């Protein structure tokens, strides 16, 4: 009967464990990296802190407002993960203010990460075009590929 107890206990434990996780969660940092944007003063070329910055991105189905951030010297912007060769990003300093459009073009490379995250995209050969010089006056290229979120990829000059 001692065997039987062990047997039944294992059985119960087995049933408990078998209900465990099938849904893998994608932890942040493992997925597709975002583009890092930093700011400089156009007159001096030195880094500057922005009081406020509004960002909107067109992910293929119209502009999506990513909202306002205050007192920042850099900002991470997620780019498109579909097969489009560019992402349109819009910057403005105040909610109703003038808006600069930056078209970021690139080539992508797919890498498998994990069951939860699926596939991540790395961006290469980054190139940015500015179309409206108010409020962003000029662009300056940073690291021209995105593999992680450490280095600045694009400088905005105000």
């Amino acid at each position: 009967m001692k065997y039987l107890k062990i047997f039944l206990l294992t059985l119960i434990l087995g049933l408990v464990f078998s209900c465990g996780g099938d849904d893998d969660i994608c932890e942040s940092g493992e997925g597709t990296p975002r583009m890092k944007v930093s700011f400089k003063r156009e007159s001096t070329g030195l880094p500057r802190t922005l009081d406020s910055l509004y960002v909107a991105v067109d992910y293929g189905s119209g502009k999506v407002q990513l909202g306002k951030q205050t007192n920042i010297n850099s900002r991470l912007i997620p780019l498109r993960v579909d097969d489009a060769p560019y992402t349109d990003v819009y910057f403005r300093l105040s909610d109703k203010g003038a808006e600069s459009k930056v078209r970021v073009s690139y080539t992508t490379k797919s890498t498998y990460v994990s069951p939860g995250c699926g596939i991540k995209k790395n961006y290469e050969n980054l190139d940015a075009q500015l179309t409206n010089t108010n409020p962003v006056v000029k662009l300056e290229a940073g690291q021209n590929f995105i593999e992680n979120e450490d280095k600045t990829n694009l400088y905005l000059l105000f």
Partner: protein
Amino acid sequence: MKTKLIFTFFFSTLSLFCLSQNKQTDTVKTEKAKWKYEPNFMVGFDLLNAGVSFFSDRKVYQGFISSRVKGDIHAVAEAGFESNVYKKNSYDGKASGPFVKLGAFYMLAKDSDNPFNGFYAGGKLAGSFYTQEYMAVPVRGFGGSNSSVAFPSSTQSSFWLEGVLGGRVQLFESNFYIDVNLQPKYLAYTTKQDDIQPMIVPGFGKSSSKFTMGFAWNIAYKF
């Protein structure tokens, strides 16, 4: 989940049945000192999983052959076929193929009148050789910008360790037995297509985690 409930229901009724049988132990046969293998075979087919196959995307047909080797030790070989789909978390994949398992189990508690009646535990080595196709592996993005990448059909193989815990009971005085067992499985090795961890492996189940639990409800015939 429903299948699991049905299974536990069967199992609980069976365990009551077996317990009542075990109470009758009076005479204990002494094992012969000299051992000679007597040909004996039991062939079983998993009815529960085959039945569930009619109502779900997961189709499992499996059977076993076991033979009492010596004393309480039985050898067991299993074979089966499974086809399954995985549509979850923006994945869309399917896999199908045969699998085989080889192992042995030990009768922990048995009926004194019939050494084939009782509870057993053991282990098996298992392998599966299957075809998989992932129509969509997700690329997770922001702001509704999700996409997926498709991969062509490919042939893969997986190997796992499997424990077995079960009970076997004779149906009245016939040569038919009911064999019910639980199979905790641990995925040891799998080949991968472009480094993609397979989400389903025939015979193993959902393989995004290394550990799964299987079960079988067999009708077996003893020759």
